[in-house]
Protein backbone atom coordinates (compact mmCIF):
# COMPACT_ATOMS: atom_id res chain seq x y z
CA UNK A 1 0.00 0.00 0.00
CA UNK A 2 1.29 3.45 -0.83
CA UNK A 3 2.09 5.87 1.94
CA UNK A 4 -0.64 8.43 2.44
CA UNK A 5 0.63 11.98 2.15
CA UNK A 6 -0.87 14.37 4.62
CA UNK A 7 -1.32 18.10 4.60
CA UNK A 8 -3.46 20.34 6.74
CA UNK A 9 -5.73 23.07 5.49
CA UNK A 10 -7.16 25.12 8.32
CA UNK A 11 -9.97 26.85 6.47
CA UNK A 12 -11.77 26.41 3.14
CA UNK A 13 -10.64 29.91 2.12
CA UNK A 14 -6.94 29.03 2.52
CA UNK A 15 -4.66 29.04 -0.52
CA UNK A 16 -1.81 27.38 1.34
CA UNK A 17 -1.61 24.02 3.05
CA UNK A 18 0.70 22.95 5.86
CA UNK A 19 2.88 19.93 5.15
CA UNK A 20 2.51 17.25 7.83
CA UNK A 21 4.99 14.81 6.39
CA UNK A 22 8.71 14.81 7.01
CA UNK A 23 11.02 15.44 4.05
CA UNK A 24 8.73 15.77 1.07
CA UNK A 25 10.87 16.21 -2.02
CA UNK A 26 10.58 18.29 -5.16
CA UNK A 27 8.73 16.36 -7.81
CA UNK A 28 6.66 14.29 -5.41
CA UNK A 29 2.95 14.35 -6.02
CA UNK A 30 0.42 14.64 -3.23
CA UNK A 31 -3.34 14.70 -3.14
CA UNK A 32 -4.97 17.75 -1.60
CA UNK A 33 -8.71 17.38 -1.61
CA UNK A 34 -9.60 16.85 -5.25
CA UNK A 35 -6.27 18.21 -6.50
CA UNK A 36 -3.13 16.31 -7.35
CA UNK A 37 -0.24 18.65 -6.68
CA UNK A 38 3.38 18.16 -7.70
CA UNK A 39 5.88 19.79 -5.34
CA UNK A 40 8.00 22.38 -7.07
CA UNK A 41 10.62 22.26 -4.31
CA UNK A 42 11.49 20.31 -1.19
CA UNK A 43 9.08 21.33 1.56
CA UNK A 44 9.90 20.49 5.18
CA UNK A 45 7.41 19.44 7.83
CA UNK A 46 5.33 22.37 9.07
CA UNK A 47 6.11 24.56 6.08
CA UNK A 48 3.52 25.79 3.64
CA UNK A 49 2.74 24.77 0.10
CA UNK A 50 0.65 26.81 -2.29
CA UNK A 51 -2.50 24.98 -3.29
CA UNK A 52 -3.66 27.80 -5.57
CA UNK A 53 -1.79 30.30 -7.71
CA UNK A 54 -0.85 33.43 -5.76
CA UNK A 55 0.28 36.12 -8.22
CA UNK A 56 2.80 38.68 -7.07
CA UNK A 57 1.10 41.31 -4.90
CA UNK A 58 -1.77 39.04 -3.87
CA UNK A 59 -2.30 37.67 -0.37
CA UNK A 60 -1.57 34.25 1.06
CA UNK A 61 -4.57 33.08 3.08
CA UNK A 62 -4.24 30.78 6.08
CA UNK A 63 -6.72 30.21 8.93
CA UNK A 64 -9.13 31.99 6.57
CA UNK A 65 -7.21 35.24 6.96
CA UNK A 66 -4.54 37.16 5.04
CA UNK A 67 -1.12 36.32 6.43
CA UNK A 68 1.29 37.85 3.93
CA UNK A 69 1.78 39.17 0.42
CA UNK A 70 3.47 37.36 -2.47
CA UNK A 71 6.79 39.01 -3.39
CA UNK A 72 6.84 37.12 -6.66
CA UNK A 73 4.41 34.89 -8.53
CA UNK A 74 3.74 31.79 -6.45
CA UNK A 75 2.66 28.67 -8.27
CA UNK A 76 0.71 25.67 -7.08
CA UNK A 77 3.18 23.30 -5.43
CA UNK A 78 5.65 26.06 -4.50
CA UNK A 79 7.03 26.27 -1.01
CA UNK A 80 5.63 29.45 0.54
CA UNK A 81 8.03 31.10 2.98
CA UNK A 82 10.29 34.10 3.51
CA UNK A 83 11.77 33.93 0.04
CA UNK A 84 8.43 34.67 -1.63
CA UNK A 85 6.11 35.98 1.11
CA UNK A 86 6.37 39.33 2.84
CA UNK A 87 4.97 40.41 6.18
CA UNK A 88 2.08 42.91 5.96
CA UNK A 89 1.62 43.82 9.61
CA UNK A 90 1.28 47.58 8.98
CA UNK A 91 -1.44 47.04 6.42
CA UNK A 92 -3.31 44.77 8.79
CA UNK A 93 -3.09 47.48 11.44
CA UNK A 94 -4.70 49.93 9.01
CA UNK A 95 -7.34 47.34 8.22
CA UNK A 96 -8.12 47.00 11.92
CA UNK A 97 -8.86 50.69 12.20
CA UNK A 98 -10.94 50.70 9.06
CA UNK A 99 -12.93 47.58 9.92
CA UNK A 100 -13.67 48.81 13.43
CA UNK A 101 -14.77 52.07 11.86
CA UNK A 102 -12.63 54.10 14.22
CA UNK A 103 -10.02 56.75 13.90
CA UNK A 104 -7.37 56.89 16.61
CA UNK A 105 -6.99 60.61 15.99
CA UNK A 106 -10.63 61.43 16.59
CA UNK A 107 -11.27 63.09 19.95
CA UNK A 108 -14.33 61.00 20.72
CA UNK A 109 -12.97 57.66 19.54
CA UNK A 110 -16.26 57.07 17.73
CA UNK A 111 -16.72 56.52 14.04
CA UNK A 112 -18.38 59.38 12.21
Amino acid at each position, binding site marked *: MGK*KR*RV*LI*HDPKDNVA*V*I*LEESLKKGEEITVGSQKIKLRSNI*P*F*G*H*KMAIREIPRGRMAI*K*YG*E*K*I*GRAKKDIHVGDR*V*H*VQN*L*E*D*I*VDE*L*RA*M*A*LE*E*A*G*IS*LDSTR*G*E*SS
Partner: protein
Amino acid sequence: MAQRIADTVGATAVVHQNGCGQVGADLEQTKRMLIGMGNNPNAGAAIIVGLGCEAVFPEAVAHKIKGKPVEVLKIQAAGGTTRTIQKGINLAQKMLMALSQEKRKEVDMANLVLGVKCGASGPSSGIAANPALGMASDRLIHMKGTVIIGTESLYGCEHILARKAVSKGIALDIIRCFKRIDEDARRLGHSFKEANPTPGNKRAGITTMAEKAMGALTKAGKAPIVGFLKPGEPPQGNGLWLMETRGADVGQISKQAAGGCQIVAFTTDLGNPIGLPLVPVIKITGNAKTYIKNPEDIDIDTSPVILGHMKISEAGEMIFSKLRDVANGALTKTEVLGFREFAIPRIGSSL
Protein backbone atom coordinates in the same frame (compact mmCIF):
# COMPACT_ATOMS: atom_id res chain seq x y z
CA MET B 1 12.12 35.78 53.97
CA ALA B 2 8.71 34.83 52.59
CA GLN B 3 10.30 31.78 51.01
CA ARG B 4 11.84 30.75 54.33
CA ILE B 5 8.49 31.01 56.12
CA ALA B 6 6.70 29.21 53.31
CA ASP B 7 9.22 26.38 53.15
CA THR B 8 8.97 25.77 56.89
CA VAL B 9 5.21 25.31 56.91
CA GLY B 10 4.70 23.99 53.39
CA ALA B 11 3.02 27.09 52.03
CA THR B 12 3.62 28.96 48.77
CA ALA B 13 5.75 32.07 48.51
CA VAL B 14 5.21 34.70 45.86
CA VAL B 15 8.47 36.59 45.63
CA HIS B 16 9.46 39.48 43.43
CA GLN B 17 12.08 42.17 42.92
CA ASN B 18 9.95 45.32 42.87
CA GLY B 19 8.27 47.54 45.43
CA CYS B 20 10.61 50.49 45.74
CA GLY B 21 12.10 52.99 43.35
CA GLN B 22 8.91 52.79 41.33
CA VAL B 23 6.42 55.49 40.46
CA GLY B 24 3.19 55.90 38.56
CA ALA B 25 1.86 53.11 36.41
CA ASP B 26 4.87 50.93 37.19
CA LEU B 27 4.12 51.11 40.93
CA GLU B 28 0.41 50.55 40.32
CA GLN B 29 1.19 47.41 38.38
CA THR B 30 3.30 45.98 41.19
CA LYS B 31 0.53 46.67 43.69
CA ARG B 32 -2.10 45.23 41.36
CA MET B 33 -0.10 42.05 40.78
CA LEU B 34 0.45 41.43 44.49
CA ILE B 35 -3.17 42.17 45.36
CA GLY B 36 -4.22 39.92 42.50
CA MET B 37 -2.16 37.00 43.74
CA GLY B 38 -3.60 37.50 47.24
CA ASN B 39 -7.12 37.53 45.81
CA ASN B 40 -6.54 34.49 43.59
CA PRO B 41 -9.14 31.89 44.58
CA ASN B 42 -6.37 29.30 45.00
CA ALA B 43 -5.00 31.22 47.97
CA GLY B 44 -6.91 30.36 51.13
CA ALA B 45 -5.08 32.93 53.23
CA ALA B 46 -2.27 35.43 52.79
CA ILE B 47 0.65 36.89 54.70
CA ILE B 48 2.17 40.03 53.19
CA VAL B 49 5.84 40.38 54.09
CA GLY B 50 7.50 43.73 53.61
CA LEU B 51 10.38 45.79 54.85
CA GLY B 52 8.19 48.56 56.20
CA CYS B 53 9.53 51.59 54.40
CA GLU B 54 9.02 50.70 50.76
CA ALA B 55 6.76 52.45 48.26
CA VAL B 56 4.36 49.52 48.05
CA PHE B 57 3.03 49.51 51.61
CA PRO B 58 2.26 46.00 52.75
CA GLU B 59 -0.94 47.33 54.30
CA ALA B 60 -2.05 48.79 50.98
CA VAL B 61 -1.82 45.33 49.48
CA ALA B 62 -3.38 43.55 52.46
CA HIS B 63 -6.29 45.97 52.57
CA LYS B 64 -7.40 45.00 49.06
CA ILE B 65 -7.35 41.24 49.64
CA LYS B 66 -10.88 40.15 50.45
CA GLY B 67 -12.68 37.08 51.66
CA LYS B 68 -9.82 35.35 53.45
CA PRO B 69 -7.52 35.77 56.46
CA VAL B 70 -4.76 38.29 55.73
CA GLU B 71 -1.85 39.31 57.93
CA VAL B 72 0.96 41.79 57.49
CA LEU B 73 4.55 41.28 58.58
CA LYS B 74 7.00 44.13 58.53
CA ILE B 75 10.62 43.24 59.03
CA GLN B 76 11.70 46.57 60.48
CA ALA B 77 8.79 46.68 62.91
CA ALA B 78 9.18 43.03 63.91
CA GLY B 79 12.78 43.65 64.82
CA GLY B 80 14.81 41.92 62.18
CA THR B 81 14.86 38.81 60.08
CA THR B 82 14.85 36.05 62.66
CA ARG B 83 11.92 37.47 64.59
CA THR B 84 10.00 38.11 61.37
CA ILE B 85 10.50 34.58 60.18
CA GLN B 86 9.36 33.18 63.51
CA LYS B 87 6.30 35.43 63.57
CA GLY B 88 5.54 34.39 60.02
CA ILE B 89 5.81 30.73 60.85
CA ASN B 90 3.46 31.15 63.81
CA LEU B 91 0.90 33.02 61.69
CA ALA B 92 1.16 30.61 58.78
CA GLN B 93 0.81 27.63 61.06
CA LYS B 94 -2.47 28.95 62.45
CA MET B 95 -3.76 29.73 58.97
CA LEU B 96 -2.85 26.33 57.55
CA MET B 97 -4.37 24.46 60.47
CA ALA B 98 -7.65 26.31 59.87
CA LEU B 99 -7.56 25.81 56.10
CA SER B 100 -6.86 22.11 56.44
CA GLN B 101 -10.24 21.70 58.08
CA GLU B 102 -12.19 23.17 55.18
CA LYS B 103 -14.46 20.74 53.36
CA ARG B 104 -14.54 20.35 49.59
CA LYS B 105 -17.72 21.64 47.99
CA GLU B 106 -18.94 20.87 44.48
CA VAL B 107 -19.19 23.90 42.24
CA ASP B 108 -20.03 24.51 38.60
CA MET B 109 -17.38 24.79 35.91
CA ALA B 110 -18.78 28.29 35.43
CA ASN B 111 -16.65 29.30 38.42
CA LEU B 112 -13.44 28.45 36.61
CA VAL B 113 -11.13 31.13 35.26
CA LEU B 114 -8.62 29.68 32.83
CA GLY B 115 -5.55 31.42 31.49
CA VAL B 116 -4.46 30.29 28.01
CA LYS B 117 -0.89 30.74 26.93
CA CYS B 118 1.48 29.57 24.26
CA GLY B 119 5.26 29.67 24.43
CA ALA B 120 8.25 28.21 22.60
CA SER B 121 5.84 27.85 19.72
CA GLY B 122 6.32 26.05 16.46
CA PRO B 123 4.17 24.61 13.70
CA SER B 124 2.61 22.02 16.00
CA SER B 125 1.29 24.84 18.16
CA GLY B 126 -0.78 26.35 15.39
CA ILE B 127 -1.76 22.99 13.91
CA ALA B 128 -2.70 20.89 16.93
CA ALA B 129 -2.09 22.23 20.43
CA ASN B 130 -3.65 25.69 20.09
CA PRO B 131 -6.73 24.67 18.07
CA ALA B 132 -7.32 21.81 20.53
CA LEU B 133 -7.00 24.17 23.49
CA GLY B 134 -9.35 26.54 21.66
CA MET B 135 -12.01 23.83 21.60
CA ALA B 136 -11.62 23.28 25.33
CA SER B 137 -11.74 27.03 25.85
CA ASP B 138 -14.93 27.30 23.81
CA ARG B 139 -16.49 24.53 25.86
CA LEU B 140 -15.63 26.25 29.14
CA ILE B 141 -17.08 29.51 27.88
CA HIS B 142 -20.20 27.71 26.72
CA MET B 143 -20.55 26.51 30.33
CA LYS B 144 -20.34 30.15 31.45
CA GLY B 145 -16.73 29.93 32.57
CA THR B 146 -14.05 32.54 31.94
CA VAL B 147 -10.93 32.47 29.80
CA ILE B 148 -8.15 35.03 29.74
CA ILE B 149 -5.82 35.26 26.75
CA GLY B 150 -2.80 37.55 26.77
CA THR B 151 -1.90 39.92 23.99
CA GLU B 152 1.74 38.84 23.79
CA SER B 153 1.38 36.36 20.97
CA LEU B 154 -1.25 38.27 19.03
CA TYR B 155 0.64 41.19 17.48
CA GLY B 156 -0.29 40.98 13.83
CA CYS B 157 -3.95 39.98 14.16
CA GLU B 158 -5.35 43.10 15.80
CA HIS B 159 -7.95 43.42 13.06
CA ILE B 160 -9.38 40.06 13.99
CA LEU B 161 -9.33 40.85 17.70
CA ALA B 162 -11.11 44.13 17.05
CA ARG B 163 -13.69 42.29 14.98
CA LYS B 164 -14.25 39.76 17.80
CA ALA B 165 -14.79 42.50 20.37
CA VAL B 166 -18.40 42.82 21.50
CA SER B 167 -18.27 46.61 21.53
CA LYS B 168 -16.52 49.42 19.69
CA GLY B 169 -15.05 50.64 22.99
CA ILE B 170 -13.32 47.31 23.52
CA ALA B 171 -12.14 47.24 19.90
CA LEU B 172 -10.62 50.67 20.44
CA ASP B 173 -8.89 49.56 23.66
CA ILE B 174 -7.41 46.63 21.79
CA ILE B 175 -6.11 48.68 18.90
CA ARG B 176 -4.70 51.33 21.23
CA CYS B 177 -2.90 48.61 23.17
CA PHE B 178 -1.10 47.34 20.09
CA LYS B 179 -0.32 50.87 18.94
CA ARG B 180 1.30 51.49 22.37
CA ILE B 181 3.40 48.37 21.98
CA ASP B 182 4.62 49.67 18.64
CA GLU B 183 5.39 53.11 20.04
CA ASP B 184 7.21 51.74 23.08
CA ALA B 185 9.33 49.59 20.85
CA ARG B 186 10.11 52.46 18.52
CA ARG B 187 11.13 54.63 21.50
CA LEU B 188 13.65 51.98 22.41
CA GLY B 189 14.94 52.05 18.88
CA HIS B 190 13.53 48.63 18.20
CA SER B 191 10.99 47.33 15.75
CA PHE B 192 8.59 44.77 17.14
CA LYS B 193 8.44 43.34 13.66
CA GLU B 194 12.14 42.54 13.81
CA ALA B 195 11.71 40.34 16.88
CA ASN B 196 8.95 38.26 15.39
CA PRO B 197 8.70 35.67 13.96
CA THR B 198 11.87 34.48 15.68
CA PRO B 199 14.59 32.61 13.80
CA GLY B 200 13.32 29.44 15.48
CA ASN B 201 9.80 30.16 14.24
CA LYS B 202 11.03 30.66 10.68
CA ARG B 203 13.10 27.48 10.71
CA ALA B 204 9.93 25.71 11.73
CA GLY B 205 7.88 27.20 8.89
CA ILE B 206 6.15 30.26 10.34
CA THR B 207 6.74 33.01 7.80
CA THR B 208 4.97 36.17 8.95
CA MET B 209 3.90 37.74 12.21
CA ALA B 210 0.27 37.66 11.11
CA GLU B 211 0.57 33.94 10.55
CA LYS B 212 2.17 33.41 13.93
CA ALA B 213 -0.47 35.58 15.61
CA MET B 214 -3.32 33.75 13.94
CA GLY B 215 -1.92 30.40 14.99
CA ALA B 216 -1.69 31.72 18.53
CA LEU B 217 -5.23 33.12 18.46
CA THR B 218 -6.75 29.69 17.83
CA LYS B 219 -6.06 28.80 21.48
CA ALA B 220 -8.88 31.15 22.50
CA GLY B 221 -11.41 29.38 20.34
CA LYS B 222 -14.17 31.17 18.53
CA ALA B 223 -15.71 33.15 21.38
CA PRO B 224 -16.20 36.92 21.15
CA ILE B 225 -14.01 39.13 23.29
CA VAL B 226 -16.12 40.59 26.08
CA GLY B 227 -13.52 42.87 27.59
CA PHE B 228 -9.96 44.17 27.70
CA LEU B 229 -7.89 43.94 30.91
CA LYS B 230 -4.81 45.71 32.23
CA PRO B 231 -1.99 43.41 33.30
CA GLY B 232 -3.13 41.48 36.39
CA GLU B 233 -6.60 43.02 36.37
CA PRO B 234 -9.41 40.61 37.26
CA PRO B 235 -12.23 40.15 34.72
CA GLN B 236 -15.65 41.47 35.69
CA GLY B 237 -17.84 38.70 34.36
CA ASN B 238 -17.54 35.50 32.38
CA GLY B 239 -16.56 34.94 28.78
CA LEU B 240 -13.33 35.48 26.87
CA TRP B 241 -11.17 38.39 28.03
CA LEU B 242 -8.07 39.85 26.42
CA MET B 243 -5.35 40.94 28.85
CA GLU B 244 -2.40 43.14 27.99
CA THR B 245 0.66 41.01 28.64
CA ARG B 246 4.18 41.70 27.45
CA GLY B 247 7.66 40.40 27.88
CA ALA B 248 8.88 36.95 28.73
CA ASP B 249 6.61 33.96 29.37
CA VAL B 250 6.98 34.13 33.16
CA GLY B 251 5.66 37.66 33.43
CA GLN B 252 2.75 36.86 31.18
CA ILE B 253 1.40 33.91 33.13
CA SER B 254 2.09 35.79 36.37
CA LYS B 255 -0.28 38.47 35.14
CA GLN B 256 -2.94 35.89 34.31
CA ALA B 257 -2.55 34.41 37.79
CA ALA B 258 -2.81 37.87 39.34
CA GLY B 259 -5.96 38.37 37.26
CA GLY B 260 -7.52 35.43 39.04
CA CYS B 261 -6.80 32.46 36.78
CA GLN B 262 -7.07 29.32 38.87
CA ILE B 263 -5.42 27.24 36.15
CA VAL B 264 -3.18 28.14 33.22
CA ALA B 265 -3.15 25.95 30.09
CA PHE B 266 0.19 26.40 28.35
CA THR B 267 0.80 25.04 24.87
CA THR B 268 4.35 24.60 23.72
CA ASP B 269 6.04 23.13 20.67
CA LEU B 270 9.63 23.04 21.85
CA GLY B 271 8.94 22.84 25.57
CA ASN B 272 8.98 25.36 28.42
CA PRO B 273 9.40 24.19 32.00
CA ILE B 274 8.04 27.20 33.90
CA GLY B 275 5.30 27.00 36.47
CA LEU B 276 3.66 29.41 38.90
CA PRO B 277 3.19 29.75 42.60
CA LEU B 278 -0.45 29.08 43.61
CA VAL B 279 -1.66 28.29 40.09
CA PRO B 280 -1.26 24.89 38.39
CA VAL B 281 0.06 25.09 34.85
CA ILE B 282 -1.08 22.38 32.41
CA LYS B 283 1.50 21.82 29.67
CA ILE B 284 0.23 20.83 26.25
CA THR B 285 2.28 20.00 23.19
CA GLY B 286 1.53 18.95 19.64
CA ASN B 287 5.13 17.95 19.01
CA ALA B 288 5.69 14.22 19.40
CA LYS B 289 9.46 14.68 19.63
CA THR B 290 9.07 17.11 22.53
CA TYR B 291 6.81 14.70 24.37
CA ILE B 292 9.19 11.82 23.81
CA LYS B 293 12.19 13.84 24.95
CA ASN B 294 10.61 15.40 28.04
CA PRO B 295 7.49 13.53 29.10
CA GLU B 296 8.09 14.71 32.66
CA ASP B 297 7.34 18.29 31.61
CA ILE B 298 4.27 17.72 29.44
CA ASP B 299 0.77 16.83 30.62
CA ILE B 300 -1.05 16.47 27.30
CA ASP B 301 0.31 15.31 23.97
CA THR B 302 -1.82 16.33 21.00
CA SER B 303 0.66 15.12 18.38
CA PRO B 304 -1.67 12.26 17.33
CA VAL B 305 -3.60 15.02 15.52
CA ILE B 306 -0.56 15.70 13.35
CA LEU B 307 0.03 12.00 12.82
CA GLY B 308 -3.54 11.59 11.61
CA HIS B 309 -4.71 9.38 14.51
CA MET B 310 -6.85 11.94 16.29
CA LYS B 311 -9.28 14.71 15.43
CA ILE B 312 -8.71 18.17 16.87
CA SER B 313 -12.07 17.89 18.63
CA GLU B 314 -10.87 14.71 20.37
CA ALA B 315 -7.69 16.47 21.49
CA GLY B 316 -9.90 19.29 22.76
CA GLU B 317 -11.88 16.79 24.82
CA MET B 318 -8.66 15.44 26.30
CA ILE B 319 -7.65 18.93 27.36
CA PHE B 320 -11.07 19.71 28.83
CA SER B 321 -10.99 16.50 30.87
CA LYS B 322 -7.56 17.40 32.20
CA LEU B 323 -8.85 20.86 33.06
CA ARG B 324 -11.66 19.35 35.08
CA ASP B 325 -9.32 16.89 36.81
CA VAL B 326 -6.88 19.63 37.77
CA ALA B 327 -9.75 21.79 39.03
CA ASN B 328 -10.68 18.81 41.19
CA GLY B 329 -7.22 18.57 42.66
CA ALA B 330 -5.14 16.49 40.26
CA LEU B 331 -1.57 17.75 40.17
CA THR B 332 0.13 18.83 36.95
CA LYS B 333 3.62 17.63 36.06
CA THR B 334 5.06 21.12 36.46
CA GLU B 335 3.47 21.37 39.92
CA VAL B 336 4.93 18.09 41.05
CA LEU B 337 8.38 19.14 39.88
CA GLY B 338 7.95 22.31 41.94
CA PHE B 339 8.60 24.93 39.26
CA ARG B 340 7.12 28.17 40.55
CA GLU B 341 8.26 31.24 38.73
CA PHE B 342 6.74 34.67 39.32
CA ALA B 343 7.64 37.95 37.73
CA ILE B 344 6.25 41.45 37.75
CA PRO B 345 7.58 42.99 34.57
CA ARG B 346 8.64 46.62 34.76
CA ILE B 347 6.99 49.29 32.69
CA GLY B 348 9.21 52.17 33.74
CA SER B 349 12.75 52.96 34.82
CA SER B 350 13.87 52.68 38.42
CA LEU B 351 14.29 55.97 40.24
